[in-house]
């Protein structure tokens, strides 16, 4: 048994379960304010206490999980959906102008600090969860393109790819039929890691006010709002912070564990 993989799966599973549960049930409505009950410490009625508007923090966390996971998931989807085809195409035409254009384009995106560009995008198009998704997604493209290209390049030298060429199959077809299934494990592992980075990025954007807008709950904005009250009511900042840390840690452990579990060279070796 791999303890890291299990711990990662449990932590990520908790975040996912909270997000799914929030779709059908919440302990309190997220917009239900009760000014008289503001900044209550955790109690039987409010498991994680209440914030400065008297909203239930547990409910906000559950609903915030939904926002975080959705933003990160779609952003990873954009990155994989565009990055992997780019990477496969670059590998299939190694050394050609297409390879150069794709990989230098990747370098260009990598050259900018991601948060600065995200701020630029939201400044131009206005702050919203959708714009945050686009901004984070764009920065996932070169990551997946590079992973896909590196994995594909080593496969292109193998005999079964030559056999497919002798069978008259084109490069695009070979990429889909022979290369993609054999780099899938690399992509899955990279996907979980990008997923955790996406959650961090969403929290960061929301923290500076450029992510999800009120009343949509968000872990990052909860932290931002709790900042001024951190000495007065530390739990208001503590719980969203813990939620972010636990989810990101869980996804990273999951990614590491999956990499070991999916790599045949490491299989059978128990750490």
């Amino acid at each position, binding site marked *: 048994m791999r303890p890291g993989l299990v711990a990662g799966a449990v932590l990520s599973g908790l975040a996912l379960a909270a997000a799914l549960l929030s779709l059908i049930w919440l302990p309190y409505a997220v917009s239900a304010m009760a000014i008289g009950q503001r900044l209550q410490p955790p109690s039987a009625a409010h498991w994680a206490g209440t914030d400065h508007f008297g909203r239930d923090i547990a409910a906000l966390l559950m609903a915030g999980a939904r926002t975080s996971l959705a933003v990160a998931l779609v952003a990873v989807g954009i990155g994989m959906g565009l990055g992997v085809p780019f990477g496969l195409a670059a590998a299939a035409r190694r050394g050609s102008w297409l390879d150069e254009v794709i990989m230098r384009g990747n370098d260009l995106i990598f050259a900018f600090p991601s948060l600065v560009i995200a701020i630029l995008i939201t400044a131009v198009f206005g702050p919203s969860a959708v714009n945050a998704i686009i901004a984070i997604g764009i920065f996932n493209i070169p990551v997946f393109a590079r992973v896909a290209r590196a994995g594909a390049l080593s496969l292109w030298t*193998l*005999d*079964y790819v*030559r*056999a*497919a*060429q*002798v*069978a*008259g*199959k084109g490069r695009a077809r070979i990429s889909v*039929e*022979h290369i993609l*299934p*054999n780099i899938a494990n690399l992509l899955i592992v990279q996907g979980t890691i990008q997923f955790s980075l996406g959650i961090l990025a969403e929290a960061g954007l929301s923290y500076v006010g450029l992510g999800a807008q009120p009343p949509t709950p968000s872990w990052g904005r909860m932290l931002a709002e709790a900042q001024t009250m951190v000495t007065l009511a530390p739990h208001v900042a503590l719980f969203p912070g813990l939620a972010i840390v636990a989810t990101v840690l869980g996804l990273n452990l999951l990614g590491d564990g999956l990499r070991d579990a999916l790599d045949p060279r490491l299989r059978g070796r128990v750490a």
Partner: protein
Amino acid sequence: MTLLSLRKLSVTIGPHQILTDLDLDLSPGETLGLVGESGSGKSMAALSVMGLLPDGAKASGEVMLNGQNLLALSEARMCALRGDEIGMIFQEPMTALNPLMTIGDQVAETLMVHRNMPRAKAQQIARARLDRVGLHAPRFPASLYPHELSGGQRQRVAIALAIALRPAILIADEPTTALDVTTQAQILDLLRDLVAEEGMALLLITHDLAVVSGMAHRVAVMKSGRIVEQGPTEPLFRNRRHPYTAALFEASTHQPPKAAAGAQRPLLVAQGATRIYRLPRPTPLAAHPELRAVDDVGFTLHEGESLGLVGESGCGKSTLTRAILGLDALQGGRITLAGRETGPQMPRQDRAMVQVVFQDPYGSFNPRHRVERLVAEPFHLTGRPADWRARVAESLREVGLSPDDRHRFIHEFSGGQRQRIAIARALIIRPALIVLDEAVSALDVRMRAQVLDLLAALRDSHGLAYLFISHDLSVVRNVTSRVLVMQAGRIVEDGPTEQVFTAPAHPYTQRLIAATPQIPPAWMEPEDDR
């Protein structure tokens, strides 16, 4: 006087019995050949002498060296012993050396570790060892890095490393399997000299009976973790008392039936074929140097003929193969297949006339597809017929596999079975020509004999032509009727196989043939009772 003796050495890994009751003796100045097929436990025997068994392996019995049982020694004592008393040489010279250390430092390192020698003194001795293995000072300074050397030269460095401390025992695990024949002959000569002049004992592990016949004083034959027969080389080879020894012997000299001379219609014709690679500029303003990988090559392959193409690594065989298969374009000349030009743009029906079987039975198949899909892949060229499943089953049956195998994944098959599946894949669209690119080089001798028989039978039943590309001259001699010898991109000799092998005209062919290890023909006969 024995130096090393194994008594009832057994090794288990979990529930698996890897070695059973090995008894071996090795004396100074003696070469002991340990032969067997892959998985017979040859390498495991060597590793247990070195104390380098994999995790979880348990050894019992005795490995006695100078009166002490190595199996009972602590890891710290074994570390002191390895390299000092016992040196080892591995198969793959490309990975046996550290790419970031100079060859002098690598040899000196052993001396510094074991003898606490000051660096300057160690370097001096390292220099002497490099001279000893034939890497002489002005041409091969100790400051060279491994990537600046060829495979054979790297293997010499590995040998210098192994003999740095003049160990009493040298273990060589398939030391020449990855090398070309002429290089192999040089390395074997060097090992033979070391045994004779330095009085070392050599344990030579190999699958190649011909190598053993020219090297070893005594031979032990291993099968499934047991020594089935051992004794002095010549009588053992002549008499072949154990049926397994006889089977190995038969397989390694096996000659499948040759093609009957039929219609001489040309199938594959190359005329002035030239493929040039542009190399990086040596200086920014210089012109690109050119490598003529295939240089003005011309030959004809007739229908139903088996043509051999031999040459050492880097001679341009692979580049020529890619051009014949139509994967790369030529820069000059042309290659035609039944009158139609080959190349990346050739139409599908032309491409369907040629198929290929590769060397590596492990890299030739997409591990995520089932056999059915793998074998049916060439139907992409012809369109998939309605009865394609029946055709796959038939193709599998033709290569001696069960039609039910089509639902299994490739990892469920052994190396020999995989090569059969590769042949089934090549056969399924009934090509006129199959290119066999080192197709049997990775197989054990008995499996190789079976696959060669299968190819001969398919050639006769389907009227196939083969282009048999190999560095192994003995296999080419046994299966082809005509042979081309390639050197540095050019065909230097072209003629009927028997003629080329018995009376080679070109000096390069003569060198190749002289370097090929051979079991002395006289040893084919049993020993006279004298």
